[in-house]
Structures are given as structure tokens and as C-alpha cells.
């Protein structure tokens, strides 16, 4: 560098006025939008872990029968309210592989609880790839092979058993099949409708908005209870609980959209005044395009958060209507049904393991939350 006598500083590295045009990296430019999002998402560790976890959860759904030592409604009337059993590895200091100690239940007529006495002298090793009750693998192949089962003369209630002597662990696995699928239908229906009507109302405003808003208002002020009452009397009696629940969750979704629609509409009413929306319109973008490409992405965070939030409601909602006979009920197994059974003081105070289904719900919901958060972050232009 040079310092001129008049106090000037002049840079003296060679100057090339045209140096700024570099060659462009093709492969990066070719990347489709989802790949870019994915690349960003990959860096969000919690989101990634959650995503993988959820993927795994959904992938094992068809094979829960194999993993669960018992089937969903298998009862062992000798072990009612059995507490969780632990799998041991060492017996009196010796390693003998995974085993359990046998237990015997006694009725205690003073406390009215079952007392379980563990016989710690005879370790019984677990069996693997063993035969148990038969179940349809992936919904198709009838088989009776389980990953592990209780040894003869003992039980393997990893998370205890319930009032009828059913294995909580196995039931949670089976419950996932319903809890992780059917309830989400409602969310989808309500989101499709909510976003659809909300964006139309918000973007177009005026008459369409007026009409949609009146529909929303009317839908919202109309009572749902009588509808359920009527439905509960009208559903054909030989429908299985799952079929009934399926219909219900769709109806739930159909009734649920106005809230979301209002939120979408309000946001769009404001967003549509943004300059970039004007710009898109002036380029000739169709309304659908403006909504999809310009408005929705700017409301994505809210939508993602809302979707995550609906999940526990839908998982639990399956039993909310059971007092009207419309909820999911035995013999169908779901987490909501299991929790419904646990709704009494004894389950909290004496048999806390019957309330274990809360855990998978929370874990799943948190996983969805982190996944959503990761997704949000990878869509956020400011977080790079």
C-alpha cells in the first residue's frame, strides 16, 4: 500500500475491473428446491434425529406383532396389574444372558392389591424367535413368530400389565398402529379445507371473503354436540370401532377447519398488500400461483406449528367422544383407549404403569415438534 503525501491511502494490489464475474457452479444451480431444503435440514440435528425416529416408528408399524411378545388382547388372568419386570443379565454374579425371574401373584385382601412375589432363585432365560399367539404380519401373513417371548413359567411384562393381565408394552406397540395413522386423517382433512378456504377468502377478499366468512361463522356457532348425539344413534351397530372412528375423524376434520381458515385468511389479508404480491400479480401470476408461491410460504411456520399441535389432540381425541359411544373403544387398541382405561386414581397412585401410554404420545409429539422446527428452520431464509 501507498500513503501519498497529502495523507491519502491508496491500495496497491493489482486491480482488475472485470474480475468479479466468476464461473458458476452448475450442480448447485441445478439442485431442485427440495434438495436445498434437505441440505439445510440435515444440519438441524434435533430435527434430523426426530425425523429418523418418526420414520422408524412408521416403518415398524406393520411389524409390531413381531416385536411385541404378546398380542394386543392376550390376557393372562394370573397376572393382573403386574408391575414392570426388568430383564436381567447376571444371576448371582454370573452372566447368563437376558433372563427374567418368575413371579407369582397373590391377592392381598387387606389392601385389595395384587402382591407379586419374585422368585430370585430360578432365572429363566428369555426365548428368541419363538412361538406365541399368531398375528398377521404386515396385515397379511399370519404367523406366530415373535422376536422374544416369556420363558415357560414366567412372564415378560416389560412395562407391566393392566387390569385384565394384558401386556402394556405390547399394547402400546399395537396401539401405535391406530394412533399414528387414523387420527392424522382428521388433521389432513382440516388442513386441506382450512388452507383452501382461508387462502381464497384472504386473498380475494370482497364477496368471496364475505361468503366464506359467513359459512365459517355459521359452522362455528352451530352446535357439534347434537350432531354427535345424532350420529351416535345413527351409526350402524355392526360397524367395527375402527370404521366408526375413521368416519368420526373425518367429520372432526371437516368441522375443524374454520379456525385455521380464519387464521390463514387474516394473515393473507395482510400479506396480499405486500409489494411482492403486487409484483407477482403484475407479472401475470394467477391467483393460485400467488397463493402457493408467495403467500403460503410466508405462513408456513404457523401452519407447521399448528399441524404439530393438532397431533396430540387427534391422538387423544379418538376417545373424547367415547362418552357418546363414538370414540375408539376396545377391542381396538390405541394409546387414547389405553389412557382412557387409566383414568382413575388407582392408576395414578397404585398402578402408575397403566398410564405409561402418555410417554409415547409425548415422545411422538415432541418428535413431530422438532421435525417441524427443523423444517421451519430450513425454510427460513434468514437462518442460513
Amino acid at each position, binding site marked *: 500500500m501507498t500513503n501519498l503525501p497529502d495523507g491519502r491511502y491508496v491500495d496497491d494490489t493489482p486491480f482488475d475491473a472485470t474480475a468479479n464475474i466468476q464461473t458458476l457452479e452448475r450442480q448447485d444451480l441445478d439442485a431442485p428446491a427440495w434438495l436445498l431444503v434437505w441440505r439445510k435440514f440435515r444440519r438441524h440435528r434435533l430435527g434430523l434425529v426426530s425425523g429418523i425416529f418418526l420414520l422408524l416408528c412408521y416403518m415398524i408399524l406393520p411389524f409390531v406383532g413381531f416385536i411385541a411378545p404378546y398380542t394386543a*388382547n392376550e*390376557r393372562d*388372568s394370573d397376572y*393382573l396389574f403386574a408391575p414392570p419386570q426388568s430383564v436381567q443379565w447376571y444371576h448371582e454374579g454370573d452372566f447368563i444372558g437376558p433372563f427374567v425371574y418368575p413371579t407369582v401373584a397373590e*391377592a392381598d*385382601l*387387606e*389392601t*385389595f*392389591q395384587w402382591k407379586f412375589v419374585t422368585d430370585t432363585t430360578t432365572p429363566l432365560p428369555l426365548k428368541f424367535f419363538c412361538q406365541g399367539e399368531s398375528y398377521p404380519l404386515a396385515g397379511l401373513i399370519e404367523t406366530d413368530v415373535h422376536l422374544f417371548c416369556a420363558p415357560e413359567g414366567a412372564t415378560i411384562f416389560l412395562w407391566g400389565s393392566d*387390569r*385384565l*393381565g394384558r401386556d402394556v408394552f405390547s399394547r402400546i406397540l399395537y396401539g401405535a398402529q391406530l394412533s399414528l395413522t387414523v387420527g392424522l386423517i382428521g388433521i389432513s382433512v382440516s388442513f386441506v379445507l382450512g388452507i383452501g378456504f382461508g387462502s381464497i377468502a384472504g386473498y380475494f377478499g370482497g364477496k368471496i371473503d364475505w361468503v366464506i366468512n359467513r359459512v365459517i361463522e355459521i359452522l362455528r356457532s352451530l352446535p357439534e354436540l347434537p350432531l354427535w*348425539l345424532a350420529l*351416535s*344413534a345413527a351409526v350402524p*351397530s*355392526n360397524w*367395527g370401532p375402527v370404521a366408526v372412528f375413521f368416519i368420526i375423524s373425518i367429520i372432526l376434520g371437516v368441522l375443524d377447519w374454520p379456525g385455521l381458515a380464519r387464521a390463514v385468511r387474516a394473515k393473507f389479508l395482510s400479506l396480499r398488500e405486500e409489494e411482492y404480491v403486487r409484483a407477482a400479480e403484475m407479472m401475470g401470476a394467477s391467483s393460485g400461483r400467488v397463493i402457493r408461491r408467495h403467500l403460503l410460504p410466508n405462513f408456513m411456520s404457523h401452519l407447521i406449528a399448528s399441524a404439530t399441535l393438532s397431533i396430540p389432540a387427534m391422538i387423544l381425541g379418538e376417545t373424547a367422544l*367415547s*362418552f*357418546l*359411544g363414538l370414540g375408539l*373403544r*376396545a*377391542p381396538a387398541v390405541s394409546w387414547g383407549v389405553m389412557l382412557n*382405561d387409566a*383414568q*382413575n*386414581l*388407582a392408576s395414578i*397412585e*397404585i398402578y402408575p404403569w397403566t398410564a405409561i401410554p402418555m410417554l409415547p404420545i409425548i415422545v411422538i409429539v415432541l418428535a413431530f415438534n422438532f421435525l417441524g422446527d427443523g423444517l421451519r428452520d430450513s425454510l427460513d431464509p434468514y437462518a442460513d
Partner: protein
Amino acid sequence: APPLPPLQESSFWLQEVERGDLPPVAERIPTSPLVVDLEGRGRTPGVQGGTLHTMVSRSKDIRQMVVYGYARLVGYDHNYQLVPDLLLDFESDQDKVFTLRLRPGHRWSDGAPFTSADFEYWWKNIANNKLLSPAGPPDFLRVEGQMPTVTFPDETTVVFAWDNPNPNFLASLALARPPFIYRPAHFLKKFHADSADSAELAAEVEDARVKSWAALHNKLDNMYKFDNHRLPTLQPWINASSGKKIRYNFVRNPYFHRVDPNGVQLPYIDIVEMEIVSAGLIAAKSNAGEADLQARGLDFRDISILRKGEADGGNYKTYLWGNAVASQIAIYPNLNYEDDAWRAVLRDVRVRRALSLAIDRDTINKALYFKLAKPGAMAVLPQSPFFTEANRNAWATLDPDTANSLLDEAGLDRRGPDGIRLLPDGRPMEIVIETAGERQEVENALQIITDDWRNIGVKLVMRPLDRDILRNRVYAGSSMAAVWYGWDNGIPQAYTSPDYVAPRQQEFFAWPKWGQYYQTNGAAGEPPDMPEAIRLMELAHDWEMATTTEQRSAIWTEMLAIHADQVFAIGTLAEAPQPVVVNKALRNVPEQALWAWDPGAHFGIHRIDEFYFDPNGSD
């Protein structure tokens, strides 16, 4: 009558008495009060005072105070014998003429005398008033279509007379929900068009925002609902709360007619505080020691938590009483089901027997009742003279093989690919059982029965409904089978009307339409068309005509045998323990007893007015 013991003034009303607002106790009780025999029943005399807390789940349940209080003209004693209570005594002439004698000097809770005029007012101005009772006097007074002649010879005598016997008359008066054949005339007259000043009445009608005097009268005249605190009563406690509340207070009736041998006027307890609590919280609140006497809303499954509360230093004990319903969980195949093919199947006694035989009652007992209930068919309990082991065990021991062959015999021998039997028309044998989704036991039991029935090729589909919806569906014949309790009265005596074991009541879910037919005199429903049912009808009628206990007993025995043989309802378990939470300081509560609605009025038969708080506190 034995001489009256010296009477003691209650401290609760002492102030009022001293102020002169209330006469002293001697003037308040009848000249010949009911002196209760405590020692004879192993009870101890107590002291007055204290507040008893208890809970119910709906605000209309404050009428439980009329039930628990159990002051009846005649009532059951602990041996289920009818004894005079409000009445000094009664006479029955071949069940045709009943002479009821009142206690001289007996007063309503507001101090007005309780006399035959109160009966007369009811009979003439209410039962026979076209506006208040357009259909005339209540049905239990109708014998072979004829109403009694009712006379009121003097202040303390009322006579009901028929040409034919009315054996049910006295028992009706002792019901948990009795027909009040007397009303506080001095109070109600002010609101009756026959007696009141029409201008004043019009003003009252206006005030109450009702549309006619009859509506007003109806509104005020609620002896059973017990929600009008102005209405005088004869019960041990009077309602001291007006309006809709969360807690209702009932204070001792200063004119109550019972006294203990020491001259202490009953009830011992000054105040009963009844709290409206959600059904699901009753156990939690009991566990927290917020109830002094509680059985309603508690269930077998709550015992463990109650016991735990006791062990953790609770101020209560949990007694286990026996439940008097004939079956805790009973399945009623609907013999009036609207589907023809199914109805034919359900009407086949072999099918019902097979279904009953396939149920593993011991497992249910173990899973739900700690093996403490008695497995068996729907039959009366040992406390009833008509109890037999044979009836209890009829078609109720686990025997899937016999069940299978019975079904095969019944023409249901074809099976579908999944092993489910097929009806003659080819439909699978899926029995849809509807329940009032309120009790988890039912759901659990049905879960077990589902497995049991699967063994005999029958598929059970459970469908929980709202209680009211369930009832309407059953009554309409659109429900294939339903679950409910067994007969409320599992301990019938010879004098108990056998209405409820005959096809006379739609409330017995196996024959809703036959019941309606009888109850509506043929206006609705359909007449019984199965020989056994027709026989039951005849027997019920015979019982009404019978004149001796022996005849009635024989009729009862035969009817119960028909039920045992025909399995109209499939019973599972009976006599499950009913937890009763009792404050440790509360005395005279029997440790062993039956929890029954009728006869018994729950606590009523155990004379809750004799319970007292031991001033020395808990033992």
C-alpha cells in the same frame, strides 16, 4: 305402650326454643313417638350433634335425602319386615281394607299437625283433580281396574278399601321412592284453585313466572325431589338450602317422630351436608377424607385406593357391603329385536343357554372382583327365601363343549372361514351388545366374554352408547342385546310384587315391547308370545290374587325357576362388595350389610338417623 323416657332438648334448636320461636321438645314430638330399639340391634345410644358430609354427582340427587332418611308410613326393618313408622300402626283386613292410624300430635317440620286431613287433601284435591292428575290416582291403587274407597273417620285414621285384595299396597308405601299419599295440606292449599283466593293465587302464579296455578302447584309440590325448602316434610332432615347450589345443607327436623331410649330426639346428626361432585372425583375426595359416609359413586375398583388412603392415616374406614342386585353385569338378549332372523335365534333357549355356558365367570370374578363376587346366573341372593344353589348354577358353569353342541343343535352349525358360526340366512353370528359406556367393569367383562364366545364361534361386538340413547334403542327394539345390572331387587320376599320378573316392565331389557304392552295397557309394544313369558304373566296375576304367603312363595319359586331355565338374561356375578366409606368416629353403621335400592333405600333401612359421631372421636 311403654312409658316415654325423659326428653332432652337438642342444643341445635336450643336458641330457637329459648327465644320462643320453637316449642320445647316435649311438645314437638307426637304423644306416642317411635322409640327405637337400639340395643336389640346391637347399637349404642348416641349424642346429638355434628355435620355429616356426603357427596352425590348430580344436583337432582338431593332427593337421596328422602331415600336415606327413610321416614315412610310403613317401612322395612332390618329383617325386611314391614313395620309402622310414621304410622302408629296399621291393620289389614285380608289385604282388602287397610286402616292406617296416625300418631296423635305428630307434626310437619313447620309445626303444623300431620293429620288425616293431609291424606284427604291429597286424595280429593290432588289425586282426583283433573288438572293435577288427569289420569287419576296412581296405578298401585288400581285393583282389577277399581279404585279404593278412601275414608277419613277421624283426625288420625285413614281407611283404604277395595273389593279385591291389594297385596302390594303396604309394600308400595315402603318403597325407596314411595308414592306420597299425603301432602302438607295447610301449605299447598294456598296454591290450589279450590281453596286459595283467586287474586292472590294469580299474583303468585305471576311471581313464579309459570303459566297457571296447576303449574305452580306442581312446582311446589315435590315431596320426593326435595328441592323446595318451603315444603314441610316428615323426613329426619329438612332441606335448608334454596336454589341451585354446589353444597346443600339439611338440618335436623325439630318435629321428627323418632326418639331413642334415652329420650334423645333423633336424628342424632344435626346437619347433613351434601356436595355435588363429579362422579369421577368421589373416590378421590373420599380418599382425601372429605366424606363421612359415602357409598354412592364408589365402586369395587375404588377399594384399593380407599384402603390405601386408610393406611396413609385417613380418618375413615372402608366397609365392604354386599350389593343386592341380582347380577352385577347381565346381558339381555333382546327377544323383541326388530331383525326377524336374529330374533328367532335369540328366542331359541338353546342359544341363550349356550351363550351363558360359554362364559368363564371365574376369570371375570378374578379380574374384576378379586374373586369376592359370586359367579352364577341371574338369580336371587341367599338373603331371599327363594334362593337355591340350583338356580344360581343353572347354565352358569363354564362348559364350552355343551355350549357348542347346543348351538349346533339350534341349527347354527355352519361356520364361516374365520370360525364364526353362520345364521340360517348366512350372516355371521355377530352379537352386538350395547352398553351404557359408563362402567369400565362392563367393558372389561365383555372383553373376557368376547374371548369366551369366540371359543364357541360367536363374535361379540361391543358398542358403548350414552345411557339415554341405549335406553331408547332398547325400547324401540333396535338393539340386539344390552348390558345392564340384574334385577334391582335381588332379595325378594313373598310379599314383593313379582312385576319385575314378569314381562310387565320394559326396563327388563330382554322384553322391552312386552313390558310396554303391559305398561301402556296395550297402547304400545306387543303382547308376549312365548309360552314361558305368557306363563310368567299368569303367575304375576296369580300373585296379585293370592291371599296367603304360601301361595305367593310358590308363585315366586316357579317364576324364578322359569327364569333360571330360560336364561332370559345372562347373569355373570352377584354380591360384589360395595365399598362404604365411614368416618372413624361415626357409630352405629353396620359393618356388614346389603347395599340395596329396593327394598332398602340404600342407607335408609339401616336408619341413618341413628348414626352419630362419637364425641370421643375415632377409636
